[in-house]
Structure formats: C-alpha cells, structure tokens
C-alpha cells in the first residue's frame, strides 16, 4: 500500500499518496482544476501556492506542479495575484533610469526586507534584481531575473507594493532591444531576402521531382 499523508487543502483534510505533487494531490482529492494550472511543468507560473507545515510558523511559497506534498501540509493556492502592469510603447521609450522612475517609482521605496527573495518559487535573488533596476543597470536585472515565471508570489509579500516580475520584464525587453549588441548578419540576411536573392534558388528546389530532392537531401553537406 502506498504511503499516505495528510494534507489540508484550503483547510480541509485529505489523505493522499506521499509521492504526489500538490497539484496532483488536489486532483486526487477530486478537484477538477481550471485556474491555477497551466503548463504543469514549472514554466508558466499559473500554480503559485502558499503552504505551511503544521507546527511550523513560517509560510512558504512554491509552484504546486513542482512541489511534493508533505505530511500535515496546509495548502492555499494563489492562482491570481493582481500585479501592476504599466503600459508603454517599446518603440518610444529609452533604456534610462528615468523610465523606471516614471513607470515603477515604487521600486525606490524598497525597504530591503528581502521577503521577495525568500518567497521566490524559482530561487531567484529578487531583491538584488530590483536593486539593479533602481540603478538603471538593465543588463544585470535582465540576467538575474531571467528564470522568472512571473507567478507573483514575491509581490504578494512586498510591503512596498512592488510588482517585481513586471519590473524585470521591462528590463529584459529594454536590454534585448536596446542594449544587447546588434546582429549584423541577421539584418543583412533580411535585406538579401527582401531584395529577392533566394527566391529563385528555393523555387528551383520546389520544382524538382521528389526523387531528385531525396538525392540532394541524403547527400547534403553537414556542418561540423
């Protein structure tokens, strides 16, 4: 018989196999999920969850699809958190400190409590990347925040009302568009294609009989 544990889903007690993730434990208990379930594999941030183990004072946060149940676990899912998302025109803004000041001034009210970092379901150094954003160091902010799944748990714990994932998103876009070096070979290829350079070449291929294409395919040169 499988090892069973007690979990409290939204306060109600259920017995579930100890091998299950929180998400599968909810399904095992009979919940047909609609909210709070997206990729089921740690990429989308739909399943943020707060839990506490009986006898322990600390509230912990996790992704329900990535975390195993434990005995005497109290679980409350947080399938939506009202993050503030400011709108902007990526073509018109510029990667300066002012833009953070304008769109997300609350980051300067960070009190340094580090609750965001402690809560991060991805183990990121959230407070650090906010510090980079304050300084207008978008490259470091982008790198530090890269694995963010935007679940919003950090913001739920923030006394300053910062929407960390959105600050990070803005930084990444600024970095990707304006700061990362431009790719000359890409722009040149796009221009060649616009000028029709490969049209004929591909059309010739398209008009060849399959037998000839097979021949070409099977003998094509492969880059080492």
């Amino acid at each position: 018989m499988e090892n069973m544990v007690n979990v409290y889903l939204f306060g109600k007690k259920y017995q579930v196999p100890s091998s299950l993730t929180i998400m599968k434990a909810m399904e095992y208990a009979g919940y047909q999920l609609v909210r709070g379930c997206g990729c089921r594999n740690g990429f989308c941030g739909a399943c943020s969850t707060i839990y506490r183990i009986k006898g322990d004072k600390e509230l912990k946060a996790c992704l329900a699809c990535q975390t195993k149940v434990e005995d005497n676990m109290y679980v409350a899912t947080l399938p939506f958190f009202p993050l503030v998302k400011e709108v902007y025109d990526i073509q018109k803004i510029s990667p300066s400190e002012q833009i953070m000041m304008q769109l997300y001034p609350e980051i300067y009210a960070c009190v340094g409590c580090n609750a965001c970092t402690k809560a991060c379901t991805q183990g990121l150094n959230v407070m650090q990347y906010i510090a980079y954003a304050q300084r207008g160091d978008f490259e470091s902010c982008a790198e530090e925040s890269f694995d963010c799944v935007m679940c919003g748990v950090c913001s739920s714990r923030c006394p300053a009302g910062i929407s960390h994932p959105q600050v990070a998103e803005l930084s990444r876009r600024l970095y990707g568009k304006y700061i990362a070096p431009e790719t000359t070979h890409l722009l040149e290829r796009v221009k060649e294609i616009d000028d029709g350079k490969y049209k004929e070449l591909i059309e010739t291929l398209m008009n060849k009989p399959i037998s000839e294409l097979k021949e070409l395919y099977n003998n094509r040169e492969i880059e080492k």
Partner: protein
Amino acid sequence: MYNYTNEQLESMKKVEATRQERCGKLHRRLTAEEKDAVLKEYHPDYITSAYEVLKVGPNKGEKVLHELADVLQGKSRVLDMDIDLSKPDYETDVLIIGAGGAGSSAAIEADNAGAKVMMVTKLRIGDANTMMAEGGIQAADKPNDSPAIHYLDAFGGGHFAAKPELLYRLVSEAPDAIRWLNDLGVMFDKMPDGTMVTTHGGGTSRKRMHACKDYSGAEIMRTLRDEVLNRGIPVIDFTSAIELIKDTDGKVAGAVLMNMETKDILVAKAKVVIIATGGAGRLHYQGFPTSNHYGATADGLVLAYRAGGKLLYADTLQYHPTGAAEPTQIFGALVTEKVRSLGAQLVNKNGEAFVYSLETRDVTASSIIKECSKGNGVKTTDGQGVWLDTPQIEILGGEGTIEKRIPAMMRMFGKYGIDIRKEPILIYPTLHYQNGGIDISADGMSTTIENLYVAGEAVGGIHGRNRLMGNSLLDIIVFGRIAGKSAGKKFKEVTLKDLTLDHVKSFDKELKDAGLNPEILSPKLLPNYTKQPAI
C-alpha cells in the same frame, strides 16, 4: 536520494558497471532498412489498431487515432442550447482563439494593420505550449547558411510531405521573424559582437538553432504577452471557443464562447476568425504521457472540422523519445534532446546500450518502445522505461558540463533528490507534437472555409509528416504574423449576413446518418485527472 524500488536500484548498478566501457564507444547506427523495420513495427504511428476511419466530415474515409476520432466526431456542446446569435456579447473585426505564441503574434500584426482585435483563451495568455519550449528556434541567418538549405533540411526531415508553398514562406520569413522578436526585446543568446549563438538540432545541416538560454519559448512568450498587453488588445481569459459561427453565406463569422468557470455562454461576432489553439498532447493518444500544457486538447481541429475545415496529416504525431519516466511527479515531462547530444546513452535494464542515441526522434522513440516490449525495460511507477545515462556527460565533457549546459534538467530532477551528474535517469517516449492540423493556403486561410485563418500547431502541412526541433517556434511566429496581416487586410472587405449555427446541426445529422450517436462532448477543453493521479 530518490526513493527508487529495489529492482530499479539493482538495474542502476548494472548501468554503472558498464558505464566506463560504454563511454569509449558509440552504438552502431541503424541501416536504412533497419530503421524502416523498427518504425513499422514499433512506432506508434504504425499501430493500425490504434486508428480508425473517419465516417463523416471533410476527411471522411481517412484514418486518425481513436482519441482524435472521438472528438472530431463528438457531440457538439451547443446542440441542446438555446443561443441568441442576434445579440452578440462581443463584436470585433478579428477574433483570435488561443493566446500562445501564434495567437499573440497574430494579434500584434492585426493590430498593426488597424483591425479591432480580441483574443479569447482557455487558460491565461501564455499558459501554452509556447511557454514550455526550451531548445530553440531555427532561422538561416548565418553566412554559411541560406533559406534554400533550410528548405531542404525541413523538407527531408518532414519525409518530403510538406506543402512547398508553406515551407517556402517558413524558411524565407524566418530571419525576419528573428529580427521582429529581437526588435520587441527578446533576449537571444549572442556573442559580444552581436553574432547569434547557434547550434545544431536533430536533422539540421547548418547550425541555425537560436536560443534564449534554455527558456527560449518562455522568453518569446512573455515578450509577446507584454506587447499584447501594452497595446491594450483585450484578452478574455478562462474563456474557450466551443463552436465556430457562420453567416448565411457560409463564411465564418465568430464563435460561441464558454466561460470556463461559470460555464456561461457568450457570443462573439467577428469579420475574421483566427484559430491558434495549439496541440493535442492532453488527448493522451494511445495512453501516452505528454510534454504538453494542460489545455492542449485539439479544440481548434474540432471547431474547424465541424465547420467544414479540411485537415492534413492528422494521423501523424511526434513522440519525443525522452520524456521523464520516473519520478512519477514529472511523468511525461520533456528531457531535452541536448542531453543525448552531450553524450548520454540509452541503456536497458541490463546495462546495455541498445541504440545510437542520436537517430531521428521517430527512430529513437521506436527503439525504446521495442526494447521495453522485449522485456528489457525497467518497471516504473507508471509503466516502464529505460535509462538515459547522464553521468557519461561528465565523463566525456569534464566535470561541470551538466551544470553549465543543461541547468534546467539538473534542477528538474534535483528537486526530487536525483543528481543527474551522478545517477542515470529513467525515460520513456512522451507525446510531444501534433504534426498534422488544419489545411491552409500560403496566406494562412483554411483551404475550405472562407474567413477562417489558422496559425501555429493547429496547422497541418508546414512541416510534412514530421517536424524538426526549432521549426515549430519558428512557424508560430511566421504563420502567426501571416495570419494577423492577412486578417488585418481581409476584414475590410467583409460584410456579414445573419449569423447561424446550422452547420453544427447538419454535422450532427451526418453523424446520425452514419450511424454514430456520440455521447462524448467535444471540444474536450480540459483533461479530467480527478482521482486518477497516474497521468
């Protein structure tokens, strides 16, 4: 340490015992004849008993898997409903169904073209297969490469079955797709001088796989999502399309929507509709686990089929050779191909390598299934599997290679107490990608229904009967943009007549005439895992 069974531990010891010796040698590659034989005998696409012939609809007489037949010939959810089409809840120029990468790209381009756009999506925007892609996206933008070489790679890789005019657009517009994403702020891996870091993927003859670390799809998806929101394009989330609406001329004219939580029914009227509903992994064809997101249930194919949309290659699926077989918590989750390119071999329960690990996906997957059916698999919580000997990577590439090159994999197994640097992992093929889908022409419109455009994994024919890694993220951007631009022009010429759901009634009649009396409601919308913790 993970709680392996004794049998698994015993077998793991055998893998360890043969590791050093195996490291020196590559397993022999299969000959063309041997490949054919293993495919015919063991590839899930060839298991005839898993298929049935469609009795009604545009593809009548063709074979599809039972699970797909069940939904294509299922019972419409609107049949017994009394829906007033004359007072739509929403009216828009362009209605986009599905908010993954294809839908979001289409939305941005249709918005650029001046259309009033609205998106509806089953879960939230970005809760989609796009978000999960790790590997990368292809484009021929290096000097030693060209769109023509890309064409040949993809055409051959798809078993010479792609529609040439679609593939032409895919490869020709690939570099511009990368430029477009970069311009929106997607952080591609680049060298200090701006040169793209590109690698090989299965079946490429040039290194043209662009990546954003091992979060390629996530980085693309969250950027597109941010852009959609910046533009104020309305995204109606937790709302599924459950049927297309037509006008009395037979053009598509909107969709019936269902609020996933309250089950309220809503009517959206639109001059043009774009289907971007993605794949079908959650139908669990032939009982396979899947790497796909929760909402991947082939809904778009069902909606289009009932409205007269022809499908192409709906019989072919991609089974990724390496899905996680243990721990049970991540059963079916993707173990990226990179693990094998870095040197990890596939090893049976006796510690023997049984196949060259970089055969094409279909051949490798079939060989694993064959090995298990010969009794050489290892029993797992959910079935069986074979070992993927990850510690070989550290032996071959030096200590630290795993942490540097496949950190996401290390994290994924590390969470369950499995250190893939020291222990091998158990894998089994997982249902990964829907090769077939709705047949479209080069401007993105369904070949059989006016005013219906399709983009992304819901399309069939771009790749043929198999797809190369990196060409799907590419197709969702290229054909998402094409659909958006085409729809952005088309809506200006459209005048709609009265709305109707008569096509749903006549499809139902066809079903009855064919002796079918389906009880399964479709589209399926979500799988039901309650009290079935296994999958």
